[in-house]
């Protein structure tokens, strides 16, 4: 990771909401190319607020945010093309009457020609496995389908950084599994805010714990997710697998994914 390019650099970022509530209190964070980073923490810990700084929706006078080597405040338009944000509620993300119009919205705004736009829409829908649904209206789709189209609306802009706010909230298990496979198949830098620690263990390589507007911990997923004390003191709960191996079975090696145990039963002494 040392050699990888830095794609996000945040220095001493502070943010106060207009009503005076302090949301971010001195955030320092680097994110490298190709990383998959999870922001975890309670509601109101500042995860979403931090994400909104990465494409300049929120801007603060205090601190610096640099994305892809550019200062966000000065390169808003370019940055919005390179940083794709998928919001939590697909009904907010999908605002056009048909899937095609929605996925085409970003590329059209970026000024691509008609053929290029169509090509990008086709590719984006193919990547999320929703080809052939171009003419459908969002109100006729299931939540899982809406989530996937939401991701397509951003992929069609071919972003270098993909930001997801609660990607698996409210979706059923099958749709969740599809989403996880979809996310793992995307070969770009991903940053996601979530409570779903199982999702984190399956899709991310770094986890950042946020608490009351500060970064409380920042490390490898294995390291953070197996630290029950850390998680509990910040209102979170370690995955069941971790608690089983640590608290019930008192093992030395603690797995965070079920697949790990299945693959290496000897290491975990099963």
């Amino acid at each position: 990771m040392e050699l990888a390019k830095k794609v996000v650099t945040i220095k001493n970022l502070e943010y106060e909401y207009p009503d005076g509530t302090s949301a971010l209190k001195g955030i320092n964070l680097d994110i490298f190319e190709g990383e998959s980073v999870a922001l975890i923490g309670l509601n109101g810990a500042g995860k979403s607020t931090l994400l909104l700084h990465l494409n300049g929706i929120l801007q603060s006078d205090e601190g610096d945010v640099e994305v892809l080597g550019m200062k966000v405040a000065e390169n808003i338009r370019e940055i919005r093309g390179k940083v794709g944000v998928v919001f939590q509620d697909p009904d907010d993300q999908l605002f056009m009457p048909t899937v095609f119009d929605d996925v085409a919205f970003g590329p059209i705004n970026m000024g691509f020609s008609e053929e290029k736009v169509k090509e990008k829409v086709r590719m984006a829908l193919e990547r999320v496995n929703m080809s052939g649904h171009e003419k459908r209206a969002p109100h006729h789709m299931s939540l899982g389908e809406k989530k996937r189209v939401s991701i397509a609306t951003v992929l069609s802009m071919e972003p270098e950084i993909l930001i997801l706010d609660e990607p698996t909230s409210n979706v059923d298990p099958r749709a969740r599994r599809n989403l996880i496979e979809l996310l793992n198949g995307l070969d770009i830098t991903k940053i996601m805010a979530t409570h779903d620690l199982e999702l984190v263990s399956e899709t991310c390589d770094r986890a950042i714990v946020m608490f009351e507007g500060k970064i409380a911990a920042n490390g490898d997923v294995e390291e953070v997710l197996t630290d029950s004390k850390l998680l509990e003191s910040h209102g979170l709960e370690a995955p069941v697998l971790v608690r089983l191996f640590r608290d019930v079975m008192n093992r030395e090696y603690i797995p965070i994914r079920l697949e790990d145990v299945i693959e290496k039963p000897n290491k975990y002494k099963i």
Partner: protein
Amino acid sequence: MKHDFIDKYAELESIIHRLDPRIKIISFFCFILLVISTSPTKFLNFLLYFLLIFGVILVSKVPLSFVFKRSMVIIPFVLLIAIFIPFLKEGEIAGSYSFASLHLTVTYDGLIILFNVLSKSWLSVLSMLALASTTKFPELLKGFEKLGMPRVMVMIISFMYRYVFVLGDEVMRMKCARDARSFGGNSKWHIKTIGNIIGMLFIRTYERGERVYVAMVSRGFIGKIKILGDLQVKKLDLCFMLAFITFLTIIWTVL
């Protein structure tokens, strides 16, 4: 939840459904124009107009019962306005009634006007239903935009179409939550709850508007929405329009 009260049956497959929306808009508006400019006593013409639109609906495979049930929606409004005309219009008397000191007379001229208003409005509604139930709403919007409707209007209607279902769901959920907790209570209290629901809905809509705007800005929105129009007029479209309008003019002029 699934809703389809706006363009129910627009997903069916038929020649009429496949036509370019612009062709349908122009044809059906011509229909209305000619129908309302037909002289009121040409009863045969009205019958032929009806048969023409009936034929179109038949070909489109949209259930007749649905179209006729829907078309009845307009009748009470028309009656409310037109029911007094036969009593007020002067002319040859068709009948007279008296209730105590009230003398009412119905004239032939008045009856013809009533028939005129009723038949024309009903035929117009039928043609609009034929348009709406054979065209998907987004296509209809594209058609209107291509025909020169201001983009702002098109966008407003398009957002309305997108979010009316979301809001509908939200109202249903709130109603559900209310019903789950309300046992009895007097009517004053019920009205108060409805007031709260409306207020809550207003705030939620306002907040959703902000979130949608943020989502738009995140994807490069700078104040102007552009959509790709992939409409193409085919031979079949032109044939339909020509045939439809020829029939109309024949009915209108020759008979």
